[in-house]
């Protein structure tokens, strides 16, 4: 059974090449994924992300539940609309999923989780919610469109009503606001400014068409992957999974260690890992010569072997970049080797982030 988003017919009308993405028939590109990539870095592009899973957590114990469920601390969220990126761990300290949590009040939160992990996420949340007074409600009746790029906010702005414009005016990054039927958030997965817009399914096609008419380029999963990788953002299933600690996946910044008495799932394991200092780490790799670094290629360092978790050609930089998990003692600036198509190539270790707001950042 293949799922289709509410925008499926719009993709076909724009000439999309469709692929199966964890049970969803989604556009991989509309002709050229590199042109779509450049549209987002230099102008504005949009992605159908309606396959992603929206879950509302509401009730008296919503805050206490989320303080236990995820590694970041939702108690840090005090301004309505503020969003938080974090991870949800199993008891062994492995990442069940990464997610964004929007705060509306101490009794009302919205979570956006990956579609590929939807069933296990919901099952885990339901299991962990026993004893808490709250409801967990999936919201499949919404579509979601991510509009990203330096001109994204201006182009969306031409389509908003006076009330909607007023609501998003001056909204800082990583916030969301409900205005009428739309939930508009300044979040994204590209390293550019823009919005993620959650919209009732009945209105999604109309908004997509208006964005097309406003000159926003439709972009597929191919460009979404090269954009997120340039931005150094993890993809669940490649850069981390249930066997990987957030400390080994460049997610340590999303762990809130204080207050020390907050008993989040996986805390004891992470505390021991931190003390031991023996977890590998996620770094960036840059290949200046010809060739493309790819997932699962072996990395050879003086401190031992590592592995490329995601690799691609970077359209913005004109050469290949990758995220790789390597021994912790490997340092930024080190030159290490990657086994690529039967030969060894030299690559430079960087921080795991390559492009932000259209510019090289390493």
């Amino acid at each position, binding site marked *: 059974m293949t799922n289709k988003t509410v925008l499926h017919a719009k993709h076909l009308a724009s000439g999309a090449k469709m692929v199966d993405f964890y049970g969803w028939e989604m556009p991989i590109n509309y002709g050229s994924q590199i042109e779509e990539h450049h549209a987002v870095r230099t102008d504005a592009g949009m992605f159908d992300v309606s396959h992603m899973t929206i879950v509302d957590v509401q009730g008296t114990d919503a805050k206490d539940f989320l303080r236990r469920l995820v590694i970041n601390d939702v108690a840090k969220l005090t301004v309505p609309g503020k969003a938080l990126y974090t991870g949800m761990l199993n008891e062994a300290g492995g990442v069940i999923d990464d997610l964004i949590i929007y705060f509306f009040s101490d009794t009302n939160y919205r979570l956006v989780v990956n579609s590929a992990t939807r069933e296990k996420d919901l099952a885990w949340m339901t299991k962990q919610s026993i004893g808490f007074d709250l409801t967990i409600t999936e919201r499949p009746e919404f579509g979601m469109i991510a509009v990203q790029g330096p001109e994204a906010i201006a182009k969306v702005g031409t389509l908003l009503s006076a009330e909607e414009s007023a609501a998003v005016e001056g909204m800082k990054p990583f916030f969301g606001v409900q205005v009428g039927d739309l939930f508009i958030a300044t979040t994204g997965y590209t390293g550019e400014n823009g919005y993620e817009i959650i919209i009732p399914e009945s209105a999604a096609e109309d908004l997509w068409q208006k964005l097309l008419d406003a000159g926003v380029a439709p972009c597929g999963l*191919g460009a979404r992957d090269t954009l997120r990788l340039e931005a150094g953002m993890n993809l669940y299933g490649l850069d981390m999974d249930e066997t990987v600690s957030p400390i080994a996946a460049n997610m340590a910044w999303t762990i809130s260690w204080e207050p020390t008495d907050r008993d989040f799932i996986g805390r004891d394991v992470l505390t021991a890992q931190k003390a031991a200092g023996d977890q590998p780490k996620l770094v960036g790799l840059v290949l200046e010569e010809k060739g493309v670094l790819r997932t699962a290629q072996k990395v050879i360092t003086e401190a031992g072997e590592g592995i490329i978790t995601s690799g*691609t*050609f970077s359209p913005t930089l004109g050469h290949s970049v990758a995220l790789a998990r390597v021994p912790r003692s490997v340092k930024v600036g080190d030159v290490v080797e990657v086994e690529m198509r039967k030969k060894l190539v030299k690559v430079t270790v960087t921080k795991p982030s390559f492009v932000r707001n259209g510019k090289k950042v390493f």
Partner: protein
Amino acid sequence: MSNIPSELKYATSHEWVRLESDGTATIGITEHAQGLLGDMVFVELPDIDDSVSVGDDVAVAESVKAASDIYAPVSGTVVAINEELEDAPELLNSDAFGGGWLFRVKLDDASELENLLDAEGYKNSIDED
């Protein structure tokens, strides 16, 4: 359905061959093949004067999706390579049968061309994929 020019010869591994008036043969990959690979980002070509035999992996087309070996469809000596591909690998996508040509060989044995598929044979081979 992608374009398959009738004047060319084809290998099942998606290379095309055009016999030139001077007796050399120009080689590229088909429009169908570039469509499968997606946007090209690098092309590795043989060197001029390289001797190639049928079936040798002599070039690589690397796209956003994968690196793909290109096999010599005929034997001979490389007499020209398409240097424009160094800066414009996307020619393989936009003009697979023209500006996206890869290399040209002086044939060792012109009768090898008879072992290749004609347009209809190639069309049948990709329909079976």
